């Protein structure tokens, strides 16, 4: 291991944090705002009662409220805490980083106006997100009703409170409310940020020390290439807004493998895995990892029959 390799690892890890920090901060601020200013049940009442309607709201939520994968986790767990049905919240969490205008356009540009690739990406991610949301919803609902703290929301973020605010004039209370909002956003940022840092470091180590020749040599076989590029997507932690350009550069890989790289990376990667275990019960976290991965692998292999 050379000193310049270690420095490169450090710089790649820092660059991943720099890239993700704005979105994680946005998610943390939205999460804190939802916690403080959104009436419990108000959102839930506006969401359709049927599973298809709930799924559709989750899938299309990203078009209205686009957010990167780092920001979607704290926001989704807060929405769950506010009574949004798990089917909607989980589906939104997994789909929003891809099914949003910015990422769809970037995919279209990266693949030289290949609309089929855009549609395939939407299809695979939508199926993966909806299936995971559906499978998680039963278990998460039961856990949630049993004890809302199962969602591991920090107890001090679960209710609006103002330490020592009693007897403070209205202006002062507003200031304290703003301070509390920002302070809890910072706390949320750090809670999720620790996994971002660990994931970024692990990803940088893989990026620098992975035997890339092996990757280049193996991408010729379709099923192997799909599995390999999925693994790469998990290890490399490329942001969903940039991953299409990276996937497009794997020119030796079949299109279905490029698709699998883009589809799984936005739902499962090293930093997200840590966040899932932090934000959800263990069984749900495992489901959030394996169900989308299995779905992407199956669908990518299926689509490889049509994508040449």
């Amino acid at each position, binding site marked *: 291991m050379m000193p310049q390799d270690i*420095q*490169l690892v*450090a*710089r790649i*890890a*820092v*660059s*991943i*944090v*720099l*890239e993700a*920090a*704005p979105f994680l*901060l946005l998610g*943390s*601020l939205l999460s804190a705002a939802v916690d403080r200013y959104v009436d419990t049940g108000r959102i839930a009442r506006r969401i359709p009662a049927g599973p298809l309607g709930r799924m559709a709201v989750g899938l299309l939520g990203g078009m209205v409220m686009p957010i990167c994968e780092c920001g979607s986790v704290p926001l989704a767990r807060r929405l769950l805490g506010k009574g949004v049905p798990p089917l909607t919240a989980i589906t939104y969490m997994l789909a929003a980083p891809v099914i949003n205008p910015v990422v769809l356009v970037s995919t279209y*540009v*990266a*693949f*030289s*106006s290949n609309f089929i690739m855009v549609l395939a990406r939407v299809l695979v991610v939508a199926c993966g997100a909806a299936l995971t949301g559906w499978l998680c919803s039963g278990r998460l609902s039961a856990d949630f009703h049993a004890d809302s703290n199962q969602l591991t929301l920090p107890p*001090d*973020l679960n209710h609006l409170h103002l*330490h020592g605010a009693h007897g403070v004039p209205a202006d002062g209370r507003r200031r*304290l409310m703003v*301070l*509390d909002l*920002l*302070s809890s*956003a*910072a*706390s949320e*940022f*750090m*809670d999720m*940020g*620790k996994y971002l*840092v*660990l994931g970024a*470091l692990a990803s940088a180590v893989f*990026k*620098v020390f*992975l035997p*890339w*020749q092996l990757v*280049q040599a193996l991408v*010729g076989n379709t099923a192997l290439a799909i599995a390999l590029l999925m693994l790469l997507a998990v290890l*490399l*932690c*490329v*942001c969903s*807004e*940039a*991953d299409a*350009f*990276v996937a*497009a*550069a794997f*020119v*030796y890989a079949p299109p279905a493998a490029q698709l699998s790289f883009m589809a799984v990376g936005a739902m499962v990667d090293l930093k997200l895995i840590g966040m899932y275990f932090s934000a959800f019960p263990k069984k749900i976290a495992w489901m959030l990892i394996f169900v989308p991965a299995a779905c992407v692998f199956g669908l990518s292999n299926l689509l490889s029959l049509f994508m040449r």
Partner: protein
Amino acid sequence: MRRVLLTLDGAFVFGLGLYMLFLSQAEAYTAFMNPKFRLLTAAAAAGLCTVGGAFLIRPDGRTDMLRTLCFGVLGMLILHAGTGVVSSAAVFAPAPPEVRTHPDPHLTRNGDVYLKSNPARLFLLLQAGAALPDQRYVTRGIVKRSAQLDGLGRFALLRGNMVCCLADVIAMGVMVAHDGAREFRDGEWAMAFGRTQATQAPQPITDMGGAGEAPFAMVYDRAVFVAEALERIDRPRFPYVFELPQSAKGPARLTGGEDDY
């Protein structure tokens, strides 16, 4: 102890904000991120300073040793990351180098006119079928050799292409064919003058590994850059380029485009 941890937490978030603010205004930013995201980084930095400041004034009640430790590790990574290949006395000067001027896109050599294009842009042009066979190009990049390339009597000329951040950098480029190709060593920087020529069948190169600071490299396999001349050059001040497909109209161009081809 609890108070110390909370203060450290707030200080780390505030410090990260300050670092991002500082970096977003410096040349060294291009060693980490595509400069088109400067504004986003600066805005996030301001946000982090704000929430970090609020946390310091009125800390959230919980402590978490792991998160404090993780942000401490991040601080050490930042200190160790340096500025990498972007190194000069002015590296932290508050003067973003990506001035949007329009330098002459051509270079004249021995009376012949060459269109400037970095290897990554050539890759994307070839991939999109937009590289004209009659067009003469001049391109600069890092030389990469491998057994497969040696067998073909060629080397790869590559340039690290960054979409968002250093994590997604891929060294992209073309195979260069020239009588003197074997005289160029792995890792040298070279300038090639010539034309692109389609190959009869794809010639994937699968034994390259990385090049320079990009651990992963990809060379276009359906064309070769037939060089009329090759020159050794010094490494450019900014080794990365920021090319996207169809982005010829406006990728971030460093130092007015002089470091861009």
